[in-house]
């Protein structure tokens, strides 16, 4: 038998969230956590969670599994069980709508802020904008993000300033377009991130890298953005000092 502790909150009936324990027979096969939740939902149809693709592509079922954010659909129960117990809680730091479903408005607002689309004002060529293999290689490890919010919601800096700190997920995407050879708005993108909060609230605690279900490294992208901002400032200072002399 295994105990599954689930964070429960229904705004219509509950004043405060509480933990409900479900005891069930351990499945013979090493099924994914999402399957386990589906079994539980047959017992208690009031349990709410998001899910869609059930194979780690859509990023809907991000949740806090035994204290670590991850996708329920690609986490086998053998990996999640500790002392015959599994604790499922919503993604930390975002307002809970119901049970394991969180309000991702703040997360998407930050994503919107970094203008997640290619910007190029030059005349488009007849077929497509070409890239060399080396230029394309720079996007590896950046474009694969599925926006599940596991990283941003495990980041203490994002918990403190969800409105001002862009967060690891959106910063990874910001760097995805900064690093893209076809994008011509690099300077404007960097300018938009140069305030004290957007990037610099990251103190490299690495929880984003620790939890990413796609094994991406937002911390590396943030480091690259910081370096580019710094070299931009250096250039500005040289121009200013040249002007004075």
């Amino acid at each position: 038998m295994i105990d599954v502790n689930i964070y429960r909150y229904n705004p219509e009936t509950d004043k405060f969230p509480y933990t409900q324990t479900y005891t069930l027979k351990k499945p013979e096969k090493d099924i994914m956590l999402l399957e386990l939740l589906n079994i539980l939902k047959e017992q208690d149809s009031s349990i709410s969670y998001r899910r869609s693709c059930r194979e780690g592509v859509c990023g809907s079922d991000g949740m806090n599994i035994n204290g670590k954010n991850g996708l329920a659909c690609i986490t086998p129960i053998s990996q999640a069980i500790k002392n015959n117990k599994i604790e499922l809680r919503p993604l930390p730091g975002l307002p809970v709508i119901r049970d394991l479903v969180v309000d991702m408005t703040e997360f998407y607002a930050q994503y919107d802020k970094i203008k997640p689309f290619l910007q190029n004002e030059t005349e488009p060529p007849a077929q497509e904008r070409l890239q060399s293999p080396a230029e394309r290689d720079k996007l590896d490890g950046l474009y694969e993000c599925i926006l599940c919010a596991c990283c941003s919601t495990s980041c203490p800096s994002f918990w403190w300033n969800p409105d001002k700190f862009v967060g690891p997920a959106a910063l990874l995407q910001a760097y995805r377009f900064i690093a893209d050879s076809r994008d011509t708005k690099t300077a404007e993108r960097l300018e938009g991130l140069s305030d004290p909060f957007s990037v610099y609230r990251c103190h490299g605690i690495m929880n984003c890298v620790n939890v990413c279900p796609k094994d991406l490294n937002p911390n590396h992208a943030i480091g690259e953005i910081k370096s580019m901002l710094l070299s931009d400032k250096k250039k500005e200072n040289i121009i200013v000092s040249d002007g004075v002399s």
Partner: protein
Amino acid sequence: MSLKPVYINLFKIQLPLSALLSISHRVTGILIFFIVLPVFAYILNILLDSPASFISFTDAYNTSIFLRTFVLFNILIFQYHVIAGIRHMLMDFHLISESLYASNTSAKIAIIIFFVIALLTILGLI
């Protein structure tokens, strides 16, 4: 509209070693600003005030285990902050790679260095 609950339970959420190092670095930074620096400035003021006050403070320091422990804790906080801070700067300069492994290993090394220096300080002062 009622306020929605937000789940943040630091006792339940798993944080890597590098996170604990970073958070404690900030906490010690606050302690240094509000406690360590004022205390050391005050002690320096006593020591430099007059030869008599210098002797009275060193006498008190030699006899009171409480005072010695208090000063020792202040020194340890400062040492911890400096060591964790150097690691942070090395990461900022990309001298430590931004992988989870490198980050956790450098955090372990920083803690070991702190314990060695702390031990030497304790042996030297007590």
